[in-house]
């Protein structure tokens, strides 16, 4: 087992400031609050949770687009935030990203050739002809026709645009791709095509994915391990099948219980959990899920539950797990 990317008790607090000239922090949004997990080489680790739980902040940290305020992020056993300039360049080539909306992540004024070769031109010493050849190969790998290379993003459908974004991520031959809701905006029939494409590319190139999504069905289909996030913390993580079939945290149960499978009997049996998500600025003392939890007892309002090891890499942060 080789861990490619490791988060160790990572925190990212955003200050909430007051005042105009002399800004003073009056509180903190604890977007990521002590998160530990690792992504193995060639495997998919999925993060799932509701909006505002900190998934995208983790994606930004993993890409070094943001700096943690606590804890450590290691890539190939090196502290990702203590790299020499040359190592930083190598890091950026090794860790690529695909985002949710290809319309905003692809420059509308650039042809596909420019979009896909840009990472090569910046990171590698290549001739124009070599860059174009690499771009052609990447486009072929994502299933786009050869003539795509001289067209503009608006000439493609949403699913094809996402394929262009994947080709751009592939062209540097990375070992990890961060997929931040990369298939969420696609239509169902196209989503399945892109999910299958990503699975094929993973096998072929031994790629690791950090797969961020809110759709439980997609997560179950695509990931080897999964972490369930709630308000800045991973409340349960483990091998995907274990987490889905032996849900240990009441939030995981609530989230899976509230999802609507494409089947009338199961969808009508889906159960509501009441209540609103507390604010990440004003977190309750004790367990942060206690206010919505059907199992909450006195201890939950007082002591923040530590992560319990349930064996086989399956962990849950609940007093009753």
């Amino acid at each position, binding site marked *: 087992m080789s861990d490619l990317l490791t988060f160790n008790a990572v925190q990212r607090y955003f200050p909430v400031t007051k005042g105009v000239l002399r800004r003073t922090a009056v509180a903190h949004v604890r977007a990521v609050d002590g998160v530990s997990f690792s992504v193995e080489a060639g495997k998919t680790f999925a993060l799932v949770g509701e909006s505002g739980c900190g998934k995208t902040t983790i994606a930004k940290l993993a890409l070094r687009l943001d700096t943690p305020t606590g804890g450590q992020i290691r890539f190939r056993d090196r502290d990702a935030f203590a790299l020499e300039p040359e190592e930083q360049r190598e890091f950026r080539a090794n860790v690529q990203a695909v985002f949710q909306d290809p319309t905003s992540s692809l420059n509308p004024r650039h042809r596909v050739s420019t979009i896909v070769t840009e990472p090569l031109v910046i990171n590698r010493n290549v001739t124009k002809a070599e860059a174009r050849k690499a771009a052609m190969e990447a486009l072929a790998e994502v299933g786009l026709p050869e003539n795509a290379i001289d067209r503009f993003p608006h000439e493609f459908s949403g699913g094809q645009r996402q394929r262009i974004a994947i080709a751009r991520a592939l062209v540097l031959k990375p070992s990890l791709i961060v997929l931040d809701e990369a298939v969420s905006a696609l*239509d*169902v029939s196209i989503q399945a095509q892109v*999910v299958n494409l990503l699975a094929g590319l993973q096998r072929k190139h031994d790629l690791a994915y950090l797969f961020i999504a809110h759709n439980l069905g997609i997560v179950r289909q695509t990931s080897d391990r999964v972490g369930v996030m709630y308000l800045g913390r991973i409340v349960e993580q483990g091998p995907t099948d274990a987490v889905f079939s032996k849900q240990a945290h009441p939030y995981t149960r609530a989230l*899976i219980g*509230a999802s609507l499978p494409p*089947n009338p009997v199961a969808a009508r049996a889906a159960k509501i959990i009441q209540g609103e998500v507390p604010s990440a600025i004003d977190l309750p003392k004790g367990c942060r899920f206690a206010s919505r939890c059907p199992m909450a007892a006195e201890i939950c309002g007082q002591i923040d539950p530590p992560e319990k090891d349930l064996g086989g890499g399956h962990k849950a942060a609940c007093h009753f797990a």
Partner: protein
Amino acid sequence: MVLIQGKRLAHLLEVRDLKTQFDTRWGVLKAVDGVSFDLDAGETLGIVGESGSGKSITAMSIVGLVPSPAGRIESGSITFDGEDLVKKSQDELREIRGTKLAMVLQDPMASLNPMFRIGDQVGEGLMVHRGMRGAALRDKVLGLLRAMRIPSPEARMSAWPHQLSGGMRQRVVGAIGISCEPKLLIADEPTSALDATIQLQYLTLLQELQERTGLAIIFITHDFGVVARLCHRAAVMYAGRIVELAKVDDIFARPRHPYTQGLLASIPDPTRPAGRLSAIPGQPPELHRLPPGCPFAPRCAKADARCIAERPPLEASAERHDVACWHPD
């Protein structure tokens, strides 16, 4: 069904051969191309389809909000509560929209005015259409916020839209929608931006409301899970046409159109372990260059010469499981 003039049994809403088109620089775009369906009081119809299938433009046509001058209802009729909406003027439509017909859109921030307090926005329809003022208006607004399960409604009355969470905003839009007790609520992807747990709260609220008031609902979505949970019947749209229309249980148990079958097979199910997803090959057609035959034929494994040459009509069946396909089942 309702009784009109004591003789004819009619549906609350009857859409007949609706065609809505847009003039674009690539030619005429047939966004809705011959759509027909009925809806009764107390019933929920799900319209499912992918982007560009025409599901939203069908809704816009019913409420009379097709973007003009580029778009227009080319032909067909929309009979709502005994009146043909296609023949109404904008002023008449505005009166109907405010009172008998309401619409909820996907993005609550686009429906709410950021410069007005929640209470004023929920009460606006009641002031304009019902002439309510003062304490009576305030009580009614509070009741609506309570009905939509908004916590501490007295305090929320004076809150601004940006101070509420996404789920709460969508419930405020829902409160505006039902404020004048409409007979028909058209909801266009109202829960797509919400999380699973909040989505389920919202759908359950709609179901309770319908049981209490006999509201008819058209729910537009791309999510078959939502259809399975909420709807009584479902219409599957593809390239501006309804390709399958049936009771929800029948659509899921025995989908008859190859497109519906393909879509259902390509949905990842969180209650089942992983396996390769079966995807529908190819891309949806471009609406300004529709093929003469079945628009799904280029992606369909069953397609033959007839499918490519001739468009299949939506055939009514005895079991009310209609399908537009030359080779169904």
